[in-house]
C-alpha cells in the first residue's frame, strides 16, 4: 500500500483552480439573460421597434405635426402628400398644396396636387400650441409646415380633415399604454393571487381557482360589452380609459395567476426552496428572495406576449363602438371611423392605424419570443 500513499492528498492539496475569473462566473441571472437575448437578432430588432413605438407614444404631442382633433373641412379626405427635398435644384424641403376638382357628373370632390403651390416645411417648427403630457406648454413640432396655416397631411386626412399622422401618433400613446397598464395590473394580480394559491394551497388555493374558473367560463366579448355598457356616458374620457383598462386586465390576470401557481407548486418542492426553509427563512422571505426571482423572468416574457392581446382587445372593443369614445384617439377608435365609408376604395390611408396595430403586435410578439428563450439562462445545465 506504500505506493498508494502517493495518491493520498489533503484537502488543501485538492484545490486545483484556474485563476482567471471569467465574466460569466460572476454574472447574475439578468446579465446572463441579456447575453442570451442578444444572440436573438430578430428579437433585438423587434425590441428596438417596440421601444420606438413607445417613444412615439410618449412624445406624441411633439412628434405629431398638428393637434389630432383640429379639423379643417376644406381638406376632408385629403390624400397623403409627398415630401420633396429640392426645388429647381435648390435645397428646399417642401410639400405641394392641393387643388380641388369637382367631377362634372358625380359632383364628387377630388384632390389633385397643385404643382404650383410650394409649402416649405422644416424641423422643430412652430405650430399648434399644446401641453406636453398635459403639463408643459409648448408650440414646437418635430416636423411641420413653416406656415402653420398651410395644409400638411403626410398620411392624408380623415372625414373632418384631421391629420392622420397626428392621430396615429396619438393613438399609439393610448393603445400602447392600455396594453402596458393592463398587463401591469394583471401582473400584480396574477403574481399575488397565483403565488398565494400555489404556496399555501388548501382552501385558499381552492377559492382562488374557483374564481379563476368562473371568470374564464364567461364568454369575453359579451362580458366586456355588458361591463362597457355599464360605464356612464357622462364620465370623462380619462376615467373611461382607465375603466376599460381594468376591464381588459380583469380577464388577463387569470392566465398569469395559473402560470405563477404552477411554477410555485413545482418549485415549492425543489431542493433549494426546502434548503431555504431549513436555513430558517420565513415564508415571505422565501417567496420574495427565492421564488419570485426564479419565475419573474418567465413571467415578464409571458407578459410581453400578453400585451398584444390587450392591444387587440382594446382595438376590438373600440372598433365595435363599446370601448373608448372620441375625442380619445386610439387605434381602435381610428379604425372604427374607417368603417364609415368605403374606406379601402376612396381613402385607403384611413386604414393606416390597422397597419400600426399589426406592426405593434408583431414586434411585441417577436420580442416576447426572444425574451422567453432567454428567460432561463440556466437551462443548458
Amino acid at each position: 500500500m506504500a505506493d498508494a500513499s502517493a495518491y493520498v492528498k489533503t484537502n488543501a492539496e485538492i484545490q486545483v483552480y484556474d485563476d482567471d475569473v471569467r465574466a460569466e462566473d460572476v454574472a447574475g441571472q439578468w446579465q446572463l439573460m441579456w447575453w442570451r437575448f442578444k444572440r436573438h437578432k430578430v428579437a433585438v430588432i423587434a425590441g428596438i421597434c417596440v421601444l420606438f413605438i413607445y417613444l412615439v407614444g410618449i412624445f406624441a404631442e411633439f412628434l405629431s405635426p398638428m393637434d389630432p382633433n383640429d379639423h379643417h373641412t376644406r381638406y376632408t379626405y385629403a390624400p397623403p402628400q409627398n415630401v420633396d427635398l429640392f426645388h429647381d435644384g435648390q435645397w428646399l424641403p417642401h410639400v405641394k398644396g392641393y387643388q380641388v376638382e369637382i367631377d362634372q357628373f358625380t359632383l364628387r370632390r377630388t384632390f389633385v396636387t397643385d404643382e404650383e403651390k410650394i409649402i416649405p416645411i422644416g424641423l422643430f417648427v412652430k405650430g399648434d400650441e399644446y401641453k406636453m403630457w398635459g403639463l408643459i406648454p409648448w408650440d414646437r413640432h418635430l416636423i411641420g409646415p413653416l406656415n402653420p396655416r398651410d395644409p400638411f397631411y403626410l398620411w392624408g386626412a380623415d372625414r373632418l380633415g384631421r391629420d392622420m399622422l397626428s392621430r396615429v401618433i396619438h393613438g399609439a400613446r393610448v393603445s400602447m399604454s392600455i396594453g402596458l397598464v393592463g398587463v401591469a395590473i394583471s401582473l400584480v394580480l396574477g403574481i399575488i393571487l397565483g403565488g398565494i394559491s400555489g404556496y399555501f394551497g388548501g382552501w385558499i388555493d381552492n377559492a382562488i381557482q374557483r374564481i379563476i374558473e368562473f371568470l374564464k367560463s364567461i364568454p369575453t366579448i359579451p362580458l366586456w360589452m355588458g361591463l362597457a355598457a355599464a360605464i356612464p356616458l357622462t364620465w370623462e374620457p380619462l376615467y373611461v380609459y382607465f375603466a376599460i383598462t381594468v376591464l381588459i386586465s380583469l380577464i388577463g390576470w387569470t392566465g398569469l395567476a395559473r402560470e405563477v401557481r404552477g411554477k410555485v407548486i413545482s418549485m415549492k418542492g425543489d431542493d433549494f426552496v426546502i434548503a431555504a426553509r431549513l436555513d430558517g427563512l420565513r415564508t415571505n422571505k422565501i417567496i420574495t428572495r427565492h421564488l419570485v426571482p426564479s419565475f419573474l423572468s418567465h413571467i415578464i416574457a409571458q407578459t410581453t406576449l400578453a400585451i398584444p392581446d390587450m392591444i387587440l382587445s382594446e382595438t376590438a372593443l373600440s372598433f365595435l363602438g363599446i370601448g373608448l369614445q372620441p375625442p380619445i384617439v386610439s387605434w381602435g377608435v381610428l379604425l372604427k371611423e374607417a368603417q364609415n365609408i368605403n374606406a379601402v376604395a376612396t381613402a385607403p390611408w384611413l386604414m393606416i392605424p390597422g397597419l400600426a396595430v399589426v406592426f405593434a403586435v408583431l414586434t411585441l410578439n417577436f420580442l416576447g419570443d426572444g425574451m422567453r428563450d432567454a428567460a432561463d439562462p440556466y437551462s443548458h445545465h
Partner: protein
Amino acid sequence: MFDDSKTKTVLQVEDLKMHFPLIKGLMRRRVGTVKAVDGVSMTVQQGETVALVGESGCGKSTLGRTILRAYEPTAGHIHYNPRGSDNVVDLAGLNNNEMQKYRPDLRMIFQDPFTSLNPRLPVVDIISEPLRANKIAEGVEAKDRVADIMRKVGLRPEYMERYPHAFSGGERQRIVIARALVTNPHIVVADEAVSALDVSVRAQTLNLLQDLQDELDLTYLFVSHDLSVVEHIADRIAVMYVGRLVEFARAEDLFRRPLHPYTEALFSAIPIPHPKLRGKQHRVQLPGDVADPANPPSGCPFHPRCAYARDICKKEVPELAETGSGRTVSCHRADELALKGVL
C-alpha cells in the same frame, strides 16, 4: 431519559410517523395515505455516524427530513439534547416559530448539488443565508464566517462572489456542505451527500466529511443507498423497509452477521469490487418488488419476499426489539435464524 454514560445521546426518535396524503385526479381527492415513515424509533449518540439504508422509496429521505422538521410529523417524538445543555426538547411538538431556534443546530446536506443551490444567488449569499436568517451574523462578520467555512471545505474564499454555475459538480457539493456547516451545527443529515458525484470526487468529499466530523464534533445521519460507502463511513446502521426500521446495529455486526432476512438480502447484493471474488458470494435473491408504502402488506411488511416467512409473519407485525444477544431487530424469527454476512 438519557443515560449518563460517556457518550451522550443527542437525538432520540420515538415512534415517529410521517404520512402523506395520496391525492389523485382532477378533483384532487384524497385516495389514501402514503406511510413514508411509519413508527421509527432510534437513538443517536454525540459524534457518531448513523447511516440509513434501504431500497428506493423506503422512506430514508423522509425520515431525515422529518427529523429536521422540514415536514410536520404525523405522530411521535424527536427528543433533542442541544449542545452544552441538559435540557431535552421534543422537536416534534414545536411550532414553526419555536423550531426556528434549533434550525442552526440541525442542518442538511442535499444530494443534488445542482437543484439544491439557487442559481440566481452568488455563493456568498447562499452560504450566509442561515446566518442572516437566524440573525447569527450579518455584514462583514457573516462574510468572514463564509470565508472561514469555504476554506474548511476546500474552496477558495476569493470565489465567494461567483455564482454556482461557475463551479463543477464536486465544488458545488462543497458549497452545499459549507452552507450546512456554516452555522456550526450539532447534527447534520447528509441525504445521499455523495451519490451524485463521480468516483474520484466522491472520495475527496467522503474524506472531507470525515475530517470535518472530527474537527467540528459533528453527528451525522448519513442517508445512502450505496452500501460500500456506508460501510466505510458509518458507526451504526439503520436498515429501513417500507417506512420502518427492520434492524439497527453497529456496522461491523451488521455486515458480519445480519439478524434480519432483509438485511441479509440487501447486503448480499453489494457488488464486490474484485474480480477474483466473482461468484464466490452468497447471493440472496429477492422475489417481487418493494411493497407499496400506500398499501403495505399485513404482518411483517417483508413477508411476501422473505424466504424464511412463517404463518405468524403474515398476521403479526414484529416489534423492533432487543434480542437475547442485545441487538435491535424486528423479525419474529431473529433468534432462530443463522444468516450470512458479507464480511
